[in-house]
């Protein structure tokens, strides 16, 4: 009798870790952005995306609100803001 003991690739996406945030989230101001991609690089969740200047966003479905994107941004174009998490849509 064989039952699956393996997981399919990338299936962790079913797990919406955005619910973990407690009151803060990064806000991408999209004014000074130079598209240096450092925020993308240092995000432990891999949930920041964008291609051109001033297009970068965090996927709040997964963002845990650690704030390292804010710390790394060379042009201070990301800020931590308070959020009322119960108003956020997760899906």
């Amino acid at each position, binding site marked *: 009798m064989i039952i*699956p*003991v393996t*997981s*399919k*690739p*990338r*299936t*962790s*996406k*079913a*797990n*919406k*870790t955005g619910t*973990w*945030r407690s009151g803060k989230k990064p806000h991408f101001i999209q004014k*000074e952005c*130079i*598209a*240096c*991609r*450092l925020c*993308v*690089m*240092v*995000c*432990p*969740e*891999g*949930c920041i*995306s964008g*291609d051109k200047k001033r297009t970068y966003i965090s*996927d709040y*479905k*997964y963002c*845990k*609100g*650690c*704030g*390292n994107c*804010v*710390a*790394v941004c*060379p*042009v201070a174009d990301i800020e*931590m803001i308070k959020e009322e998490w119960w108003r956020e849509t997760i899906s």
Partner: protein
Amino acid sequence: MVTELFSSGHTACAGCGQALGARLVVETTGPNVIIANATGCLEVFTSRYPESAWGVPWIHSLFQNVAAVASGIEAALRIKGKLDQVRVISQGGDGATADIGMASLSGMFDRGHDILYVCYDNEAYMNTGVQRSGLTPFDSRTTTSPSGKKSFGNPRPKKNIPEIANAHNVPYVATASVAFPKDLQKKVKKALSIRGPKYLQIFVPCPLGWRHDPGLTYEIAKLVVETGLYPILEYQDGKLISVKTIEAAKPVDEYLKLQGRYAHLFTERGKGEIAKIQAIADSNIKKYGLLKEGKGVREKMVEEKPAEEKIFTTAELSKCDGKDGRPAYFAYKGKVYDVTGSDPWADGEHYNMHFAGADLTEALVEAPHGDEVFERFKVVGVLKV
């Protein structure tokens, strides 16, 4: 672009340095890789059945045998004739690497398997709740090396695994920090271009175990390098080929004070201890030549040190593009600056926008900073127009 090789939805703590490190590694390797993972946080937070964060073939067996499991994978690929197409990575935390898995790691090095071993060094057994490992630094507080009336925490310095790796005559050994992602990725790329056993040790902060704000992961990973406490090194065939130099070494308490694991040192009694940690940093700086102006190894390695007022033609400048170990120079308002070894200029690329080997006078208009930043860099000559 949201990565397809290391997916969101994993269950690492917010600000996890290991998640960050692992993502950077696998994004660099690309999809043609098989990863063997030791037991530990990384395994647990990426593979809770029926989910997995991995977009590459991945296997976990036990705590201490990851290098041996990877050896088996490599042997299987070799016999199948697929080793040219598929790379093998063996990875684990500091405990899996430096303690329980040391013998199997040594065996992997010794047998010469074509594997890149990546150690995510968060300096303690985090998966079990922050116990002391062989890579826990001096005077750091863990649950099994607590501070107390008779203790300042862990009484021993970190094991020097890169040197142990070198003692096995492996072709490539390096250290990195997640605060310097381009340097890290460059090293992964380089390691994968070399056949045989490779070792990469990455400094990965753990907000939970080190008791720091999750938002400080980046800052702490930067400071540990800037203080000299975690030398960023690169060895090829046992020879030190590059070090990440520091502008001016920051005092270690700037790094220590951000972390609860060192809080017991910031007392009257602890002052002497901080001095001891400073001594470790100073010794690293001296040993590896970490100071930019010091007589470091880097200076020894650069063969042709250009004279101060060397006159560069455009063609000459274009050769100094920072690729393949060449120096990274650019010109600005007639002066030629040396940015070799600067992380924002790794591989001669500056945020994917500017490239070394060219006159960037025009381009600075776009930059978020003024020309005051150039003071940090050394002028190596002038550009002949």
